[in-house]
């Protein structure tokens, strides 16, 4: 375990845990941005600069802000946002523990996971751009279409009631 990895991993996990356990919804989102920033740091550690910056731009710059807006537009009705059924708590813990156990078991039993870090590949943004326009041009177009559809869909969903009221 190297020191930067340990720090970033601890920050990410702490952010994620705080995001899922704090009472105040806005605090949850702020903790979530910490987790996102930690993930971006991990991408940078892994040498994926472009993805790291895209993560900051999209997740911190857009999704966190969007979530905050949604919270401010919808808050104030629920006294306690936690599940209040004890039986559900038990079943949830079992499910989560099982999933985590299976994942850890898979990681540990695989010979792949003991592989050490290979020398960093020479990846430039230029190569990513060429790959996007060459091998992955169809997924890129589909993503473009999806984003447009999502944009229009989100606007229609959010505007619907207002139109009806008029």
């Amino acid at each position, binding site marked *: *375990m*190297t020191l930067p*990895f340990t720090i970033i991993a601890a920050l990410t*996990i702490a952010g*994620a845990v705080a*995001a*899922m*356990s704090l009472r105040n*919804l806005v605090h*949850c*989102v702020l903790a979530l941005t910490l987790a*996102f920033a930690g*993930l971006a740091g*991990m*991408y940078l550690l*892994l040498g994926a600069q472009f*993805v790291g910056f895209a*993560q900051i731009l*999209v*997740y911190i710059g*857009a*999704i966190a802000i*969007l*979530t905050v*807006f*949604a919270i401010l537009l*919808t808050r104030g*009705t*629920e006294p306690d*946002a*936690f*599940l209040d059924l004890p039986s559900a708590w038990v079943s*949830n813990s079992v*499910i*989560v523990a099982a*999933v*985590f156990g299976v994942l*850890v078991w898979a*990681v*540990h039993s695989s010979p*792949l*996971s*003991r*592989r*050490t*870090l290979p020398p960093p*590949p020479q990846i430039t943004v230029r190569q*990513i751009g060429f*790959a996007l326009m060459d091998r*992955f041009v169809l*997924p890129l177009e589909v*993503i473009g279409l*999806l*984003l447009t559809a*999502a*944009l229009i869909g*989100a606007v229609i*969903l*959010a505007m619907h*009631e207002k139109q009806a009221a008029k």
Partner: protein
Amino acid sequence: MTLAGYLIVAALLFAVGLAGALTRRNAILVLIGIELMLNAANLNLIAFWRYGRSPEALTGVLFVIFSIGVAAAEAAVGLAMIIAIYRHYKTTNLDYIDSMKG
């Protein structure tokens, strides 16, 4: 530094996201939990790309880029839906949004 470290972090992140999505009753927080799980998957992809045999193929990186794009679309539509539901039910607590229970 082995691949296992990143995979364990991703697994932890996934478990935390799953626990949140299952336990929290606020729709926005459930969405946040799903986002976290998606991010855990992204981390796995990048880690496998970096430790893989041919990182020059860039498959992992591009997959993550597309996944981030999908996540952005998902968040936009999901939050718009939550706001639309909130207008209707005046709550974002998933336990009270049950008119399609049948």
